[in-house]
Each structure stands twice: as C-alpha cells, then as structure tokens.
C-alpha cells in the first residue's frame, strides 16, 4: 500500500497513507503517513464510533494538506478501547489465510 501511494503520488496526485504499521510505511518511503494503533481492518477506528473515525480522518486531512516535506509522519494519539488479547484475536480471520496455512504446513513438515 505505501508503494501504491508512491505510484499515485508520482502521477501527480498528493496522497496520505493511514496505517497501523507506520514504521513499515516509512521504510517503504510513503510520502505522507498517519499512524494509528488500531487492529487490522480498522484504519479509521471502532465500528459506529463516529467521533473516533472523525478524529482519524481529520488528522489524515491535516497531514495531507499541511505536510511540508516528503516522509512526514504523524501518529494519532488514540488508544484502542478493547483489551489487547481480545482485539488481537478479533481482527484475525476465522480460518487461516491460504499463505498462513501454507507456512504452517511447511513448518509442520520440517518438524
């Protein structure tokens, strides 16, 4: 996704990436980054929590319009309101993805 942002930016369109892995977006050289400490699948916040979603979107707009230099990163200071263990379990698919299944099978066949 950070690389996709680069390609669109290179086509002349300003971009900002709102991401739960801002350190990775920095490494991949995204032009503007907003970091959120939210579970995967929840870039803008909790379902039906319009206030949290609005804080995220407004920060994205501020960084989009106000960043002065390539690589600008601003993190959103909002804590996920669900205990970590529960949130960690909740975002993951009920069935492992094909690539995870493949990795697990490879590991099992090695052991």
């Amino acid at each position, binding site marked *: 996704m950070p690389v996709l942002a680069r390609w669109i930016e290179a086509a002349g369109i300003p971009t900002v990436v709102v991401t739960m892995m801002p350190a990775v977006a920095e490494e991949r050289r995204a032009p503007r980054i907003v970091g959120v*400490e939210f579970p995967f699948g929840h870039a803008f916040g909790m379902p039906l929590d319009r206030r949290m979603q609005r804080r995220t979107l407004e920060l994205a707009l501020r960084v989009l*319009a106000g960043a002065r230099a390539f690589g600008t990163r601003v993190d959103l200071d909002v804590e996920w309101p669900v205990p970590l263990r529960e949130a960690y379990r909740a975002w993951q698919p009920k069935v492992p993805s094909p690539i995870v299944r493949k990795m697990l099978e490879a590991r099992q066949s090695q052991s």
Partner: protein
Amino acid sequence: MIVDSYRFLPRSFRPLYEGRGAFPGEDAPVWAPFEKRLAYARIALLTSAGIYLKGSHPSFDVDREQAQPDWGDPTWRSIPATTQPQDIAIAHLHINDEDLLADPEIALPMHLLADLAREGVVGGAAANHVSAMGYQDRRLEDWRSTTAPQIAAHVREQGADALILAPA
C-alpha cells in the same frame, strides 16, 4: 505518542515487514504538493479491505488465491460515495470482516467525508471512491503496471485533488 507498528501483528509475521527497507527501485522521494486550501479541495478515498458491491461487482478472486496462496487479486473497484452498508460485501482472506460489514466506514469513511464536505471542512468528496484487496504477490507487478495508473486516472476523472489510502 509513537504508535507501536507491530502491536496487533502476530510475532512470527514481524520479520516479513520490519527492516526490509524500500521496495526495489522505490527509494527516491516522490512528492506532489497539495496546493489548495482543504475547503476548496475534493478528496477521494481508497481502501484495501477487499470491499465490493454485492449487486454489481464481481468478487475479488479468492478462489484463485486459495489455489495459489502467493497470489492476490490485483484488480480494483469503483465504489459510489452513496453506497449503503447493506450493499457492500468483502473478499479478503486475511482479516475478520465482521466489523467491516457492520460499519464499512472503519475502512472507507465515505459518509463521514460527505459530512465534512457539507460542513465545509473539505471542498468536496469524489463521487466514486476506490477499493482494492491488499494481499498481493511480493513483486506487485500488476499493481505497478496496471492498477496504479488506472486508479490515478480514476481519481483524476473524479476531479479529486488528493487521495487518502487506508490499508486493511
């Protein structure tokens, strides 16, 4: 406050992401200046949560991904800004889609953006936003050669001045 980029990631996945540096050939800065006031700018959104419209779009091809786990569907969908949650489906094998189906705004806040446009915070919202599916083969060749130029053209056709991208 600095976000912990790996807080929700399984520990065994971390080396797949951390310390890998830039994508090959993508190290140099790229920069398109944002020149308008937000209040006069039209904004487009992109999600990679695998959102599509039940009634009118084909699903992202998860059958092929099941058969070929290193591959992910590189195509994209145009999502009208007036789309209602009940018209949305999700094809993404790497996340639990329950919260997304309950409230797609957590990935694609198009109704919130429309509110901000009505309030004058932004000048407007694109009539059609963008959806992709974020699990892709490592080389990203189809995204680079086809999807990215198509999305850039779409954003321009929408008269949008900028794009907010949110990975799932």
